[in-house]
């Protein structure tokens, strides 16, 4: 029985997001005029050895700070699916 952690990584407010801008513009070109803006982020899903939720969350936070997010320009959010939660 493993645990799943989902890490959402996105650019901090105010940081230029050329990719999002381009996506919005092409959606408009394709006739989706209701699109006013777009931003693109990452979701990293981790399969983890089972553990106790708080402890796991703390570890994943450490992973974000060390590798998963570039905290100079990105912020992140963590979600843990405890086995039973499934």
């Amino acid at each position: 029985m493993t645990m799943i952690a989902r890490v959402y990584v996105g650019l901090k407010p105010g940081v230029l997001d050329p990719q999002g801008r381009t996506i919005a513009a092409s959606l408009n070109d394709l006739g989706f005029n209701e699109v006013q803006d777009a931003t693109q982020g990452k979701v990293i899903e981790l399969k983890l050895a089972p553990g106790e939720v708080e402890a796991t969350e703390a570890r994943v936070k450490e992973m974000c700070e060390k590798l998963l997010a570039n905290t100079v320009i990105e912020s992140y959010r963590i979600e843990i699916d405890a086995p039973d939660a499934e």
Partner: protein
Amino acid sequence: MTETAITPEVVAEHGLSEDEYQIILDRLGREPNLTELGIFSVMWSEHCSYKSSRRHLGKFLTSSDKVIQGPGENAGVIDVGDGDAIIFKMESHNHPSYIEPYQGAATGVGGIMRDVFTMGARPIALMNALRFGEPDHPKTKALVSGVVAGIGGYGNCVGVPTVGGETNFHAGYNGNILVNAMCVGLARADNVFYSAAKGVGNPIFYVGSKTGRDGIHGATMASAEFDDDSEEKRPTVQVGDPFTEKLLIEACLELMATDAIIAIQDMGAAGLTSSSIEMADKGGVGIELNLDKVPQRETGMTAYEMMLSESQERMLMVIQPGKEQLAFDIFEKWALDVAQIGQTTDTSHLVLKHKRKTVCDIPIAPLADDAPNYDRPHTPTAKRDVLYAAQIAQPDDYNQALLDVMTDPDIASKRWVWEQYDRHVMADTVDSSQSGGDAAIVRIHSEDGPTTKAVAITTDCTPRYCYADPVQGGRQAVAESWRNLTSVGADPIAITDCLNFGNPERPEIMGQFVGCIDGMNEACRAFNYPVVSGNVSLYNETNGVAIPPTPAVGGVGVIPDISLLKNLQGAEDGDTLILIGETTGWLGSSIYLRAVESREDGAPPPVDLQAEKANGDYVRKLIRNRRVNGVHDLSDGGLAVAAAEMAFASKVGLSLKNPTDLPAHAWYFGEDQGRYLISTDENSINPILTTAEGLGVPAMVVGKVGGTRLTAQDAFDVTVDGLRARWDQWLPTLMSGGTETV
């Protein structure tokens, strides 16, 4: 925004001294508001005003019969014949790259490209000169991979080949890496664009990305009180958008093909402020901008923020009245944000309107004329003792010594770096990092198609020499670039530079700065090889520890006919090896000393400029007369390293001998300057030696080409493939901890 009181603290946080602030008060006859103070502070910053370096840069040779535009514009311009001009410059992005390696390096590349296409040139080549800390320093790997990915990510996307550079590792850069990027562009000599605004009532256009709160100086931000939510106000790291840059290049070149542009200037550091003021000051006109018209990425931006924002991929231009629509059409075709944000005036003031209020009204002249220009105290670096070969024991194992030198971080192959750079896009690359060659070679491909001419480009600096003796080190940096261009048969024409130093307020650092400039200038004059553009990066130090003085030199030369080209790839089986230049066996401050003896002492090799010139001119003549098959200059690691690199590139074996009475370590690893290793066939040997004698150029036979081994009489004997593998794998092993496929 609530008007901020201009307290001494606010002034200090803007990096302005009391005296500097007093000048502002005198010139304005009143207190500046925060926006005006911000404008003065960036214009008078070291970066924009060169206040510590200006008087010394003034010593450089900056003109020759080939120079169309020297320092003072966005980039230097040289005449390469047939109506073509080459426009080039090098710039640093050191601090941003340390904070955020990928974006810092990427935006550095973007910025230097804008300096070049602003002047009407299509960028045709990029170079990069990188300095990192010790390989095993905890930060180094992440910095290397981020910086390299950023340089590649930007240049590859824009579609300009990154053809060469240099990469050093040294503890002196542990806390301050150096990321210097160089761009070379091609323009028509009669269609070069400048930044001087002209006329009155001419429309000013803003083109490119929208303005956000990117890179606004932290301290100044903190000093300003805002009413909006402050989270949003945090200074943000600039993110590069190479896609927009590419569109900007194509759009600007398309508009430049018409007669719509009067003046044009990229928005670099201090974006809208420095670009508008430089245009006005150079043209002796006034400028009025309506900031409400500035394309904005975020809501609630203040005048202060818009004027100090360093958002990337933006240009400012003065458009020919009546051509507005033409400009709009072209920029809209390329899907760029474009707006007419103001016009030139006859007030010789910079006037800014925002939300129907005048938020700035200052005379332009003082911003430039009164900019501080300091004569900082400088103490010359103490001379070091000469270290004689006799004082250094020979190694007991020469094969090991050779291996130690070939796997020294500065000598080892940088393939891991340059394989992440597109070196071939534009299909004009004749030679690049790929061959390990001395200079990259890019064909001149003018509007009417490919030509048979090429530019040769190199970047060079040997910081350990500059640290040991700034004057000799400065000479050497220029001399090595001249030598590298010569080694591929090019006529060296001019250089750009990027002067990276520590804190100029410390006399010993200022002494390094002045020493390097004096040495560089002596070499420039000796070779008639002027400085046409450059950049100064000071305060590269952490906790009082400064980087080694690093005046990076970017040299450009012209190869009149590609078919005459030679480089280190040409050595053929059966060739004879001739060494041009005098060898005294100089081991002080050498790679050998560092790699084998773990010492970095001793005076660096002196550079005899007359000999350097005579030897180089002779080698170039031999290349032009098709007298040689392979050529490589000697630099780091001396004869042994030059021979190994030639063996790798030419895929041959070499056997060296020592015809002198110098000890083997001094003969093979000494770093005497002004030397070249050439390979030639039987019947050219005597002509080469006798002509050399006539010219007083030292030349002697030092070995043969053939076989599969690299052997040296009384020293090493290894297989070329085995040595290559170790040399090739050093960096991949460092970066991945494992072996990568070649």
